[in-house]
C-alpha cells in the first residue's frame, strides 16, 4: 500500500476518533448537566436508605422511614439532587419537632456551607410561632416573607404531619401547605425578578427539630403552575397516602409523640455522679439515680455527666434526643468496664446543648477508662464493611491499638462510598467495650451518632501499590515516548544527511567530474596533435592523462559513495552487489552475493550504516587486495543481522591495519548502531570483514516492558557516539 494512502487512512481514523471522543464528551457533559437528570426523584427513606444526602449541621438520622433532625440549630440542612435541576416541584410530609421554629424544603440550592443561611437558594417552611408559611431567599444573608395559614386551617401544631409542596418554574415560586386532606391548603406564591435559576433540593429546620418523609421531586411546567394556582383549594395527592395527623407511629418509641415534649422539671437532689455507679452496689442489685446529658439515642441510649457515661435501658421507651438533660433512675448492673442502668425511668429536665467530645488517644480509650463516654479519636481506616441491619462498620489501626466505629444505617452508604482505605480519620462517638459491638476483635468500639461525626484528616498516602504501578507505567510510557521521539528525530536527521549527500553527489557529478573529464579530453586532444617525436612530452601527457583518469575514477567513486538512492530502490544486498559490480567493472573479479535466514526489514539507519561499511570494505578489497572474487553475505538471525565481505586477495597482518583510518571509520560507523565490527585477515589468506548489528526488538503487548527497557539502554548508549562522532565523511 502506498505511503500516502496509509497516511490518509491514519488521518481519517484519527479524525474519526477525535470526533467520537469530542461528541462523547459533549454528550456526557450534557447528560450530567441536564436539568432532568434524576427526575422524578423519590426518597428511599422507607427502605432505610438516604444515599446522596449531604448534611450541613444538624443531627440527621433515619428512623422508621422518617428523616429526622433533632437539633434546634439555626438552619441545619440536608441536601441532595442535581445542581442543574431547574423547574421542578418538591412535596412531602413535614413535622415540626419543637416550638418557635420552622421546618421545610430548600429549592434551587447551590454553594452550600455549614452555617446560618449559608447557601444560595430558596426556602419554604412551616413556622409555628406566627402560624405561617415562610418563603425566604438565602445567599449568605436572608430575606423573607411570611404568609399566614388560611383561616380554614387550625393553628400549626408541633408533632403533626403537614403536607408541603413547593413548585419553582422560571422566577415563580409557589408553595402550598395543608394539615388535613379535607381542609383547603394555604397557597402562597411570589415572583423573584432576579431569581436563582437552578439548584438542588434540601430539608431544613430553623430553631426547631423537624421530620420529613415521602419526598417526591418532579419536573414542573407552566401547565403545572397554572394547575396549582387554579386548583387553589385542591391539594395534590401525595405519592404515598399521608394521614393529616399520623399518630400510628406512636407505638414506635423512637418517633416523637405529642405527649413527651420536654417540659422543665425540678431535678432530684438524690442523684449520684455516674462514675460512682461502678462502685455502687457491687454485691447486690440496687437502684440509683443519675443526671446527665443524652449523648446517644441509637442503637442504645447513653447519658453522660462530668464524671463519665452510662448506658440506659428505659423501662418505658420515650423519645429522647441528643443534648437533652435527663434524670434516670434504674437498677445498676455491672460489666467488666461499664455500668448499665436497667429498667430506668427517664425524665427530661430540659433540652441542653450537646456536649463536646473528649479527645483521647486510642490507647487511652482501650483502657476502658472512657467507656460510655463521648470521645474523639483518630485512626487509619483499614477496612469497611456492613454489619447487622446495614450498619456500617469501620475498622481502624492507630499505632499499637485498633478499634472499630459503628454507624447506624441511613446515610452510611454515602460514607461507605466516600471513605478511602488508609485514610486518617477522626471519629466522634460513644466509646464502648461491650463485646456485642467489638466482637472481641478490638478493645473498644465507637458508636457514631451521624455521618458528620467522621472527619477525614488526610486521604490515603499517595505511595500506595496501585499508585506506584501507575507511576511506573507512566514513567515507562514517558520514556518510551521520549525514545520514540528521539528515534524519529534521528531518522529526520539521517534523512537530512542523506539528502545532503545526494546533493553533494550531484554537485560533484555536475561540476568536478565533468571538469576532470573535460581536462582528460583536452589532454587527449593535445596528445593527438603533438608530433610523435616529442616522446618526453607524450610521456608527460600520458602521465597527466593517467592522473586525470584516476581523478575521474575517484570522483565517480565518490559520487557513487555519496548517492544513497540504492537503498531506496533496492535492498541492502542488491545495493552492495551493484556497488561491487561497479567497482570491479572491466576486471575479472567475481562478485558473489547471498543471504541466509529470514530477511527482516531494516531501519534506514542500520541499512545505511551497513551499506557504508560494506562499501568501504569492498573498495578496500578492490584497491589493495587484488582478489579473484568477492563474497557479500547477509545473515539474518532473530535479533541481529550480520554482514560479511569476504575476499580471497592477498590479505595482511591484522595488527598492522587495525588502526588504519579506514578500519577506524568502519568501526565508528558500527558503534553508531551498536554493532560489532571484526576484521579477520592473514597474508595470502584473504580478508573478511564482519559486521554484526542488533536489530530493534519488535514491540508487542507482551514484550513492551523488555522492549522499553532495551530502547532505554540503547538510547543511553547511543547518545554520545551518535551525537558527537557519527562518521558522515568518507574516512579513507
Amino acid at each position, binding site marked *: 500500500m502506498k505511503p500516502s494512502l496509509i497516511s490518509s487512512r491514519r488521518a481519517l481514523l484519527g479524525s474519526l476518533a477525535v470526533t467520537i471522543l469530542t461528541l462523547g464528551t459533549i454528550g456526557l457533559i450534557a447528560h450530567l448537566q441536564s436539568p432532568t437528570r434524576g427526575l422524578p426523584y423519590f426518597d428511599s427513606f422507607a427502605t432505610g436508605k438516604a444515599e446522596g444526602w449531604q448534611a450541613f449541621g444538624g443531627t440527621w438520622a433515619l428512623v422508621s422511614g422518617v428523616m429526622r433532625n433533632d437539633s434546634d*440549630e439555626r438552619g441545619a440542612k440536608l441536601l441532595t439532587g442535581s445542581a442543574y435541576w431547574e423547574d421542578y416541584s418538591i412535596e412531602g410530609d413535614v413535622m415540626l419537632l419543637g416550638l418557635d421554629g420552622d421546618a421545610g424544603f430548600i429549592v434551587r440550592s447551590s454553594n452550600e*456551607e455549614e452555617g446560618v443561611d449559608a447557601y444560595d437558594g430558596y426556602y419554604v417552611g412551616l413556622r409555628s410561632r406566627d402560624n405561617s408559611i415562610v418563603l425566604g431567599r438565602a445567599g*449568605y*444573608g436572608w430575606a423573607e416573607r411570611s404568609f399566614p395559614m388560611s383561616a380554614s386551617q387550625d393553628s400549626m401544631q408541633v408533632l403533626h404531619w403537614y403536607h408541603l409542596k413547593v413548585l419553582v418554574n422560571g422566577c415563580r415560586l409557589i408553595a402550598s401547605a395543608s394539615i388535613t386532606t379535607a381542609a383547603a391548603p394555604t397557597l402562597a406564591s411570589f415572583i423573584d425578578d432576579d431569581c436563582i435559576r437552578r439548584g438542588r433540593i434540601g430539608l431544613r429546620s430553623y430553631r426547631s427539630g423537624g421530620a420529613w418523609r415521602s419526598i417526591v421531586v418532579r419536573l414542573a411546567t407552566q401547565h403545572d403552575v397554572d394547575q396549582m*394556582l387554579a386548583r387553589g383549594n385542591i391539594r395534590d395527592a401525595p405519592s404515598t397516602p399521608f394521614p393529616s395527623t399520623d399518630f400510628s407511629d406512636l407505638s414506635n418509641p423512637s418517633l416523637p409523640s405529642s405527649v413527651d415534649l420536654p417540659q*422543665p422539671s425540678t431535678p432530684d437532689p438524690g442523684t449520684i455522679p455516674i462514675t460512682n455507679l461502678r462502685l455502687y452496689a457491687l454485691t447486690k442489685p440496687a437502684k440509683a439515680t443519675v443526671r446527665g446529658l443524652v449523648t446517644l439515642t441509637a442503637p442504645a441510649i447513653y447519658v453522660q455527666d462530668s464524671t463519665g457515661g452510662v448506658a440506659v435501658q428505659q423501662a418505658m421507651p420515650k423519645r429522647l434526643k441528643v443534648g437533652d438533660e435527663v434524670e434516670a433512675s434504674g437498677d445498676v448492673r455491672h460489666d467488666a468496664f461499664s455500668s448499665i442502668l436497667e429498667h430506668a425511668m427517664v425524665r427530661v429536665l430540659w433540652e441542653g446543648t450537646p456536649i463536646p467530645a473528649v479527645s483521647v488517644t486510642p490507647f487511652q480509650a482501650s483502657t476502658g477508662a472512657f467507656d460510655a463516654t463521648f470521645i474523639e479519636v483518630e485512626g487509619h481506616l483499614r477496612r469497611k464493611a456492613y454489619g447487622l441491619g446495614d450498619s456500617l462498620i469501620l475498622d481502624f489501626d492507630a499505632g499499637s491499638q485498633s478499634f472499630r466505629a459503628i454507624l447506624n444505617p441511613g446515610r452510611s452508604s454515602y460514607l461507605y462510598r466516600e471513605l478511602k482505605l488508609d485514610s486518617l480519620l477522626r471519629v466522634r462517638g460513644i466509646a464502648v467495650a461491650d463485646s456485642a459491638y467489638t466482637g472481641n476483635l478490638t478493645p473498644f468500639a465507637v458508636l457514631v451518632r451521624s455521618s458528620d461525626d467522621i472527619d477525614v484528616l488526610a486521604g490515603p498516602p499517595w505511595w500506595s501499590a496501585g499508585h506506584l504501578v501507575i507511576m511506573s507505567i507512566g514513567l515507562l510510557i514517558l520514556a518510551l515516548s521520549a525514545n520514540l521521539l528521539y528515534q524519529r528525530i534521528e531518522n529526520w536527521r539521517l534523512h537530512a544527511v542523506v539528502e545532503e549527500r545526494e546533493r553533494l553527489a550531484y554537485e560533484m557529478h555536475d561540476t568536478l567530474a565533468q571538469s576532470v573529464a573535460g581536462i582528460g579530453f583536452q589532454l587527449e586532444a593535445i596528445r593527438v596533435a603533438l608530433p610523435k617525436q616529442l616522446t618526453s612530452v607524450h610521456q608527460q601527457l600520458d602521465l597527466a592523462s593517467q592522473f586525470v583518469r584516476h581523478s575521474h575514477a575517484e570522483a565517480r567513486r565518490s559520487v557513487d559513495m555519496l548517492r544513497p538512492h540504492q537503498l531506496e530502490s533496492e535492498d541492502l544486498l542488491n545495493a552492495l552487489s551493484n556497488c561491487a559490480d561497479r567497482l570491479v567493472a572491466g576486471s575479472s573479479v567475481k562478485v558473489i552475493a547471498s543471504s541466509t535466514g529470514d530477511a527482516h526489514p531494516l531501519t534506514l539507519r542500520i541499512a545505511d550504516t551497513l551499506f557504508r561499511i560494506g562499501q568501504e570494505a569492498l573498495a578496500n578489497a578492490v584497491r589493495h587486495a587484488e582478489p579473484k572474487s568477492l563474497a557479500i553475505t547477509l545473515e539474518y538471525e532473530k535479533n541481529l543481522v550480520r554482514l560479511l565481505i569476504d575476499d580471497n586477495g592477498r590479505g595482511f597482518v591484522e595488527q598492522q591495519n587495525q588502526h588504519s583510518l579506514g578500519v577506524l571509520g568502519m568501526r565508528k560507523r558500527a558503534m553508531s548502531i551498536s554493532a560489532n565490527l571484526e576484521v579477520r585477515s592473514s597474508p595470502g589468506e584473504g580478508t573478511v570483514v564482519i559486521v554484526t548489528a542488533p536489530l530493534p526488538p519488535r514491540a508487542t503487548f507482551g514484550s513492551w516492558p523488555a522492549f522499553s527497557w532495551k530502547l532505554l539502554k540503547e538510547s543511553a548508549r547511543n547518545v554520545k557516539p551518535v551525537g558527537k562522532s557519527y562518521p558522515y565523511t568518507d574516512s579513507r
Partner: protein
Amino acid sequence: MEAGVHIYWNAPTREDNIDDQITIVQRVTARGYQGLVLAPDHAQALITPVRRAMSHGLPVVVVGSPLSIPPGNGLCYVLNDEEVGGRIAAQRVAMILHGRGTVALLGIDPDILGIITRARSVEQFLAENYPDIHILVKQVGTFNRFREQQVAKETLKTNPDLDAIIALTSTSEHAVLSAIGDSQTSHVKVIVFDPEVWIFDDPHIDSLVVEDMEKMGAEAVSQILRKSTGRTMTPLTKFEPVLLTRENYTNEAPELYSMIYAWPAHSRWRWTIDP
C-alpha cells in the same frame, strides 16, 4: 452592595457553638477577603483566631460586644453602647415602677463582655438614682432556651412578687415569657434587650432595648473600606441603643423605622397569596 462591596455573611447554626464561629473566622482568613466583621460569641475564645486574621493583614472590625484586644494594627471596634443601654433600661424600670419595686436581671452571659457591662450599668444606675428599686435576682444566662426557661420559672416561683424582669438576651426573653405564661403571673413587666423580632405580641412585654444594627453594620464596612484605601480605622465607635415602647413604635417614628433592617425582599419581590 451599595458601595460595591460583596458581603459573605455566615454564622454558626448554634449561637453557643464557639468552635463553628472560630472555623468560620479561619475560613474567612484563608479565603483572602479584604476584611472581617465579627460579632463574637465569646470574649476569650475568639482572641487567637482574630489575632491570626490580623497577622494575615486582614482588617478586623468587631461589632456588638468587644474582645479583650486593644484596637490598632488593623483592629477596631464598632460597639453597641451598653452603658447607655443599661441606663435606658434602668430609667424605664424606674418609670414603670414609679421609683419603687423589685427587679430581676436574667440572662447575664459571662462569656459576652457587652452583656456584663449592660447588667452592671443597670445595677449601677438604679443604685445611684433609685434606691427603692431593688434587684432581687441576678441569674447567669446561656443560649440554652430550656435551661433559661427553668431558671426563669424558678425565679418566678421563689419571687412571686417581682415587679419587673429585665431580660438581657433574646434567649432569656423567650424563657421569661414562657415561664410567665406557665405561672399565670399577670403583673410582671418585662424589658427585653436585643429581641429577635420587634413585636409586642405578649402583654407582659413593656419595652424593647434595640441595637442599631444597620448603622453598626454600615460603619463596620465603612471602616474596612477606610483601611483598604490606606486610611486609618477609627479605634472605637459606639452607637446608642434605642428604647422601643408600644407608644413610640406604633407612631412609627422615622428614626426607629430606619433601624429596621432593610430586607431586600421588601423592595424587590412581587408576591401574592391565594386563597
